[in-house]
């Protein structure tokens, strides 16, 4: 009895601490936005409402369904405070170490959530393409953002997305006009640098493709050193009719980093989105991928690969809503776990009453390499229409001894054989990444992690 009472008191205390922490973050930023005088009326109102939502929303606990397997305790305990001043001390030489060798792309760089003109190397952009800082655009051309920014993420969104809306300061904007064509990919480097006290950066990014526009975006989350910090980013993506976006996201944050991403995608008729999410870094990483269709015959393809080892938790949540008929969605995620690594996969495909002829398939496959790793997977279907084709599948397994034996009998060492098999398993997802330079780079990153992994 007393133990139960104790734990419930502890829970209440934790909830209070968390609520206080959230308020501090959202409130502080609202003042920042008002005092800087950059906020437009509509945006100020959105921020205000978001701050209200943060205040009103119940603090997630282990009993909240979407946080069932992902504890927030370790995040709260860090006592992160909001990033204040932009970091301008870096020179292009400093970021050399985080670049992908041989990758030919327009490069945009953000440091601790703020767009850096000095480090970005955009080259010549084709007509109808704008890339730049969100803060700048709020100052110079806010009309271009109205009705898009904060609207895709919507009001019913996640607690951390509301927090981000209330507190956002800067981020990346990529706008493609109707019919614009971006042939070279755009590489967006989200660089984090550790500060004296642990900081949380809350960047807000917006990518909007007009009707028939096409682009390829490569986002990379990297850090200098093993710094402790938190990134709470929200990415809003809007695809017009017939638009095409190839989107690669490679998360290789520092081993001590906390990473939260909310990706909100809105797709109009006939648009095609192909996203590949690679999760390698961070000690605690949560990604929410949310898709809505606003026109028929749109296709959404989400793929992912995650690796989690000692002191790592990687969590992917997916919410794909089919509200209209004739749309197609694919989710294919693969995970490799070693050491004491933990992974969470939670995917929901929702098919509304009128969304006939929906075609949806979800799969999650996990490879566990060590005795202490854990995976919690929950692929869900919620279907209210009858003329649909929906399926999901999930597996958890390990390397087949026969496969290992085959390779070993050909003179390959056990550890190399294991690595080869894991890379084979991961290869399918890495292949989808696009540019060869990026594929090679990610393959190397995955290989390195597997080499260091304690295999037992």
């Amino acid at each position, binding site marked *: 009895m007393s133990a139960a009472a104790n734990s419930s008191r502890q829970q209440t205390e934790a909830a209070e601490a968390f609520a206080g922490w959230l308020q501090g973050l959202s409130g502080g930023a609202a003042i920042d936005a008002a005092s800087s005088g950059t906020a437009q009326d509509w945006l100020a109102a959105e921020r205000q409402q978001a701050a209200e939502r943060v205040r009103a929303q119940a603090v997630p606990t282990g009993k909240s*369904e979407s946080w069932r*397997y992902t504890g927030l305790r370790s995040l709260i305990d860090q006592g992160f405070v909001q990033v204040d001043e932009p970091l301008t001390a870096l020179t292009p030489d400093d970021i050399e170490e985080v670049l992908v060798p041989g990758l030919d792309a327009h490069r945009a760089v953000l440091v601790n959530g703020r767009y850096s003109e000095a480090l970005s190397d955009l080259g010549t952009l084709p007509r109808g393409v704008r890339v730049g800082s969100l803060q700048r655009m709020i100052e110079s051309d806010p009309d271009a953002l109205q009705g898009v920014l904060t609207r895709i993420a919507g009001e019913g969104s996640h607690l951390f997305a509301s927090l981000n809306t209330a507190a956002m300061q800067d981020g990346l904007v990529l706008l493609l006009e109707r019919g614009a064509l971006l042939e070279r990919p755009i590489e967006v480097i989200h660089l984090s640098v550790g500060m004296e006290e642990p900081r949380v950066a809350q960047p807000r990014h917006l990518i909007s493709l007009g009707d028939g526009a096409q682009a390829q975006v490569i986002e990379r989350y990297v850090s200098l050193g093993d710094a402790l910090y938190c990134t709470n980013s929200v990415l809003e993506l809007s695809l017009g009719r017939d638009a095409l976006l190839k989107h690669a996201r490679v998360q290789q944050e520092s081993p001590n980093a906390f990473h939260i991403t909310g990706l909100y995608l809105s797709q109009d*008729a006939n648009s095609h989105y192909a996203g590949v999410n690679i999760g390698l870094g961070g000690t605690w990483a949560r990604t929410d991928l949310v898709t809505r269709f606003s*026109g*028929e015959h749109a296709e959404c393809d989400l793929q992912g690969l995650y690796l989690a080892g000692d002191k790592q938790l990687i969590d992917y949540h997916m919410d794909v809503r089919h509200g*209209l*008929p*004739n749309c197609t969605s694919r989710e294919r995620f693969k995970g490799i*776990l070693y050491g004491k690594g933990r992974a969470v996969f939670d995917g929901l495909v929702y098919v509304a*009453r*009128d969304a*006939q*002829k929906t075609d949806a398939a979800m799969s999650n496959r*996990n490879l*566990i*390499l*060590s*005795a*202490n*790793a*854990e*995976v*919690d*997977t*929950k*692929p*869900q*279907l*919620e*279907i*209210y*229409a*009858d*003329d*649909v*084709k*929906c*399926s*999901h*599948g*999930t*597996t*958890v*397994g*390990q390397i087949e001894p026969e496969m290992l034996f085959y390779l070993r009998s050909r003179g390959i060492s056990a550890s190399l054989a294991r690595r080869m098999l894991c890379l084979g398993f991961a290869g399918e997802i890495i292949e989808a990444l696009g540019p060869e330079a990026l594929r090679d780079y990610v393959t190397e990153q995955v290989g390195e992690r597997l080499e260091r992994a304690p295999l037992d």
Partner: protein
Amino acid sequence: MSAIPAEAITAESKADTVGQYDDLVNAGYEHGFVTEIESDTLPPGLDEGVVRAISARKGEPEWMTEWRLAAYRKWLEMPTPTWAAVHYPPIDYQAISYFSAPKKKEGPKSLDEVDPILLETYQKLGIPIEEQKALAGIAVDAVFDSVSVATTFREKLHEAGVIFCSISEAVQDYPELVQKYLGTVVPPTDNFYTGLNSAVFTDGTFVYVPKNTRCPMELSTYFRINTPNTGQFERTLIVADEGSYVSYLEGCTAPQRDENQLHAAVVELIALDDAEIKYSTVQNWYPGDENGKGGIYNFVTKRGDCRGHRSKISWTQVETGSAITWKYPSCILRGDDSVGEFYSVAVTKGRQQADTGTKMIHLGKNTSSTIVSKGISAQHGQQAYRGLVRIAARAEGARNHTQCDSLLIGDKSSAHTFPYIEVKNSSAKMEHEATTSKISDDQLFYCRARGLSEEDAVSMIVNGFCKEVFNELPMEFAVEAQKLLSISLEGAVG
């Protein structure tokens, strides 16, 4: 907004679904008759006094009364679960009468002494309690409302050393067995409904199969809810001692009622070393009328504990009735090399709602489990599969295969899948697959081209869809289940 308006598609499929098979889909509940019989019923309401009264009427020993009271006190502190995908108005637990026993002149010694009205009821239901029972080789422990009124084949079972009696008798005659096992698989505090059941359960079945004994026949209990406003709180406890085997059949029908009736049963299975328990259910309680009025609330907790090494527990269920089903027959695979199985067919039509599935908790080494769940949802039917597969860190070499398929008939029906998979051991092998679809036009066309009527074609396709589960049922049940499915569903195709 779109080239083809959504309404056009909906209208088209509606034309397919509605109209042609109204007769079949709208077929009333076949078993909706009420037997007028005097009942000895407690007034509605629940407090400690009622719990004591139930215990006193059943002449229970002190420890049993205390056990009930402890459960009742815990229950008062428990919240009603709200996480399931079902919707219903709040239940007033004070408006339910917690005890209803058919009045007996004296305890029946043989079938001849059983109230003839009761026997007639069973005959209407087609229960083989007389000659049929001998032919079918089934011993029937018929539960009329809450008290067992007839128990057959007991002698024959007695020879084999198998105890098959009502739980009330077991409390009197085998208190040491009941005390040892009752509540060890499903503790009273497990959830809201188990708490309620533990406090007020009136009857149920107790089975004990001794060491190295194969139960000579399939055991069967038919439940029937009869008195209005009486919740049924059955308690079933089956213990299979080392090296034994038992197959238990449970089936139920209920008469048509306007008020919702609550059914919160608890079933506990315990399999010791090398023992095997096979538990089959055909559930066909009154589902309510086409507007969802009336119908049984079926909130059941069923759990099996593979306590011994190499033990096996297998659940098979065919769920076609009840307004709301909330049921997750589960297996705790504690012993090494133990096996858990769950085969389920669930049908929801009209306004029926079902949230059902299973839990497989792998604790022992080399444990394996199989889950096959087939859901069919028609008209406004709502259905959810909710399952958990947990492989604990020490469960070396655990193996699970899960398959859950849903068939949707009509554009107002819905089907959901919520599987939870938690793996903490690297040697585990776990597969899960799920699909949702409707009966394809090609399948139908093929059958129709060969001269089958559309109803027969659908019936055949649905039976094929469920075959994996029907194969697991004992013969007599498989026939009944197929018939039930045909009656429930024929023709409702989109």
